[in-house]
């Protein structure tokens, strides 16, 4: 037997993000303005018959660190191409700091690590970073960019003779060199080993601490959870969820509270606080809940605590629930408590 409450639109999760902690103070050189760092409005992009991005709405405030999470082919790279002005949207609009991406890039306000970049042959780290800095109106000192990316020791080395991890740090330094306000990283750690990955995120945090905005794409959940204030889950070219890791866990159906019924009737269990779904197997009730604490307290009030057990869903569960079995369902119809 299974009784579930009506679908809870995921928009709630989107709404909750408005209350995430305030952004760090922007640098004094560039006074804060009203426009968000990133604003997508109904942006769509198709390649032939493939709808790579099927209508995205997204606001990223200045100072936020946002992860774009999705499987391969979910539309992450196309979203980033739109964001950087490398592709024009077929419909809708993309604005960075209230300007077109092209203008923002020309003004040196954006830095990027692209996915398909190989080492530029026959130049040294220092020459490359120096060059990129000179193309920007207000770059950071080359030594500082090298320091931040952990490249000081390698400044005189030729890029085509570096290891994979070192070359990736060079690409990060390229993105930093212009001292941009927004940095965009397309799967920045895909080719890195554990040690290099750790060093990379340390560098990125150093940059984010200065009050800059960071957006990165990844298909590693742990990475998104650990390094972003906010996770935007993309699937089939749409945003299917948007919130903190905690909010995503809840959106996917929340925790599971199971308890022995001990002959007790099941009526009313579905009305307990937080409960969105009740499932009875033999003499045991499994309550899917958005608020496990309140549910447990209420159960205790009924005296139903025998064999009580609370299981938190993993973020993996949440991710699969949000993307796995329903690849084409629009964001606002995914029920919070739907079965996996």
């Amino acid at each position: 037997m299974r009784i579930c409450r009506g679908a809870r639109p995921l928009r709630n999760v989107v709404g909750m993000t408005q209350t995430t902690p305030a952004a760090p103070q922007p640098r004094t050189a560039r006074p804060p303005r009203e426009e968000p760092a990133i604003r997508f409005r109904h942006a769509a992009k198709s390649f032939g018959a493939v709808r790579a991005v099927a209508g995205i709405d997204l606001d990223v405030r200045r100072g936020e660190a946002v992860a774009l999470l999705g499987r391969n082919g979910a539309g992450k790279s196309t979203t980033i191409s739109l964001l950087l002005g490398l592709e024009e949207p077929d419909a809708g609009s993309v604005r960075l700091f209230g300007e077109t991406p092209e203008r923002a890039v020309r003004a040196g306000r954006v830095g990027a690590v692209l996915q398909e970049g190989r080492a530029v042959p026959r130049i040294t780290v220092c020459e490359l970073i120096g060059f990129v800095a000179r193309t920007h109106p207000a770059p950071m000192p080359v030594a500082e960019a090298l320091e931040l990316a952990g490249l000081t020791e390698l400044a005189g080395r030729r890029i085509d003779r570096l290891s994979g991890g070192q070359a990736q740090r060079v690409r990060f330094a390229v993105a930093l060199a212009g001292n941009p306000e927004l940095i965009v990283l397309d799967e920045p750690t895909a080719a890195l080993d554990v040690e290099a990955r750790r060093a990379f995120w340390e560098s990125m945090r150093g940059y984010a601490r200065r009050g800059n905005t960071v957006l990165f794409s990844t298909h590693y959940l742990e990475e998104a959870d650990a390094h972003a204030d906010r996770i935007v889950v993309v699937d089939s070219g749409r945003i299917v969820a948007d919130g903190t890791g905690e909010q995503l866990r809840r959106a996917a159906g929340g925790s599971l509270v199971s308890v022995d019924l001990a002959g007790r009737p099941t009526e009313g269990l579905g009305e307990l606080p937080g409960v969105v779904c009740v499932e009875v197997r033999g003499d045991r009730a499994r309550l899917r809940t958005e608020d496990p604490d309140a549910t447990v307290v209420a159960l205790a009030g009924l005296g139903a605590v025998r064999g009580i057990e609370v299981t938190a869903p993993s973020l993996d569960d949440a991710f699969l629930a949000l993307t796995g079995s329903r690849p084409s369902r629009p964001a606002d119809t995914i029920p919070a408590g739907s079965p996996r």
Partner: protein
Amino acid sequence: MITAYVRLEVRRTLRDTSFVVFGIGMPVLMYLLFTNIGSGADTGDWKTSSMVAMAAYGALGAALGTGTGVAEDKGIGWLRQLRVTPMTPRQVVIGRALTGSVTVLPAVAAVLAAGASVNGIRLEAWQWAAVALVLWLGALPFTLLGIGNGYRLTAQTTGLVNVGCGLGLSIVGGLWFPAELFPHWLRSLSDFTPTRRFAELGQSLAAGGAPGPAAVAVLAVWALLFAAYAVLSYRRSARTV
């Protein structure tokens, strides 16, 4: 901004061993071989005109090589990375063309130096300067051809096509063997090649005369064609690299 880009790309080109060996060393070697093996008594003029032709050949190779570099940069994602710097695609392509102009110089200078030192060619100072100048400026159409190929084709294809263009234009244009030795039909064809007219600019100056209007006209037509080709290729792909 463009200066910084040109400096970077020139460095990269000059550090390319194959460019130094084949782009600079090869024309010098071929020049010295062609003018010192099996030579008869009356070789003074041939040594001078071959010097200019081989310098033109070196310039041609370097100019086309610029396009091969563009295709490589497209392949490794460097052009795409440049699109997320404040440089515009137009500045990138202009920077590349300027890079081509700069890297043409060592090839030209090396062959002229070999002519003066090894083959003992004596010209007036203004003639040396004028020959170097026309070979330098006259290489621009070939840079545009190379860039057109580079934007349009993949790295591998561009390499092959540019080498093919280089060989074909050099041979038919009489840069290796004087067109005077060609059969009549090939000679008529040769007169319409940009390479023949390119070398002719320098050869007339080295002989103490001024370049003929026909040479300038033919080269100008080719320059326009190659420029149009480069612009079309660039328009087609500069925004999608």
